[in-house]
């Protein structure tokens, strides 16, 4: 909350509190996200991780108190992969990034290749496996120019090699001056980088 080195902050949360279904999920949660930070939100099922991320992204407004200062563009990937079963991965991805910037078809193809969907660019997404489905969505990370990523359980359904690759990507992003806030029930391998927000206690670690 101190205005110290605030110039570089990507996001500042002031005294966030949230009540859902009659229960107080957290209160007095304040933190600042600066470039180079990788924050993992931890807590048991139902602790309010998803809710917190949605508040940070600006999607949720009811029942919460406090203020969120967003000082940089964000990329939010939620639980639902937002992949349309009837469209192909290429079409899905093209539409996802259409709001952010005009990406050439070649770049989209490259991103799909990087998430291991080479050869699957033009099949209908409904024939993809669960992990491949998710990967279509994760391909956005390779195209995003937003410095702050908000990722809700990005490793769901991804195989081991995919998780390792994704962690590498997160590390690169963080070391390149970006920041990541993510939730996951799996422990990251990049432990030396990670800072935690434990939600059950409502404290910042």
């Amino acid at each position, binding site marked *: 909350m101190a205005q110290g080195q605030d110039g570089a902050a990507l996001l500042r949360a002031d005294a966030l509190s949230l*009540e859902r279904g*009659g229960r107080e999920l957290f209160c007095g949660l304040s933190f600042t996200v600066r470039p180079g930070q990788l924050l993992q939100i931890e807590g048991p099922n139902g602790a309010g991780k998803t809710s917190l991320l949605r508040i940070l992204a600006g999607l949720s407004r*009811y*029942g919460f108190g406090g203020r969120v200062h967003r000082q940089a563009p964000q990329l939010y990937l939620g639980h639902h992969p937002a992949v349309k079963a009837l469209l192909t991965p290429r079409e899905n991805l093209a539409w996802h990034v259409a709001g952010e910037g005009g990406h050439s078809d070649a770049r989209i193809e490259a991103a799909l290749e990087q998430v291991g969907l080479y050869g699957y660019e033009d099949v209908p997404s409904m024939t993809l496996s669960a992990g491949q489905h998710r990967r279509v969505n994760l391909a956005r990370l390779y195209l995003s120019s937003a410095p702050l990523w908000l990722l809700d359980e990005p490793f769901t359904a991804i195989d081991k090699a995919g998780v390792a690759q994704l962690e590498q990507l997160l590390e690169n992003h963080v070391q390149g001056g970006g920041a990541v806030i993510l939730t996951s029930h799996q422990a990251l391998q990049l432990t030396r980088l990670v800072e935690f927000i434990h939600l059950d206690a409502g404290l910042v670690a």
Partner: protein
Amino acid sequence: MWSFFHKLGSPPWLFGIAGSILRWLLPITLVALAVGLVWGLLFTHPDFRQGNSYRIIYIHVPAAVVALAGYYVMAIAGAVSLVWKMKMADVAMRACAPIGAALTFIALVTGSIWGKPTWGTWWVWDARITSMLILLFLYLGVVALYEAYDNKEAAGKACAVLSLVGTVNIPIIYKSVDWWYSLHQPASIRFTGGSTIDASMLYPLLLMIVAFYCLFTCCLLMNMRAELVEREARTNWVRKLARAGEARA
């Protein structure tokens, strides 16, 4: 002035003031209703064309008039809650809808009962009747939308948006229904304007209209109190209220 608005935003104050208004308005309403009814039913002479069935007018017209006015109360409350984010307006808007729907329902049912002896049919597609039916739909839409949401805060906002859309649209709907009727107007059913009403019939009617306005206000305040209690369930003043009620019981 500002402090008044500020107070309006304070739920316990509103709850209390609504209670004290109700304490004298409710008896007045009931007395006015009773006097108006007895007057209309017992002390007026029948209409020379419609006979005694016209006595329905003492509930039909007040219900219709107040139901129409109610929509505007609701829409204004909705606008206030959306624009100035005043929670109390939200509560008021929510409280208006069921009352308005009930009054519209009364107007429709009494009208159609009136129609049977007068026109020989329960229902005609007259302009005014059709608009009244549409008004009922509009009210029920707001009620249903509110009930459908689990998150009552979101429900309030959604209803406010809907009633604002309604405010823009109601004049259009009314004009177009009028116009539609005049375009088609079949010779068989002419709706009497009812402007040549006898004074002896008019006074009880006016009294009943006033009484229905009071009734609307009473119901509005009562609904608001119920709504306030539910929304503020986790605040201290409501808890105190609950404990007090428990002690009394």
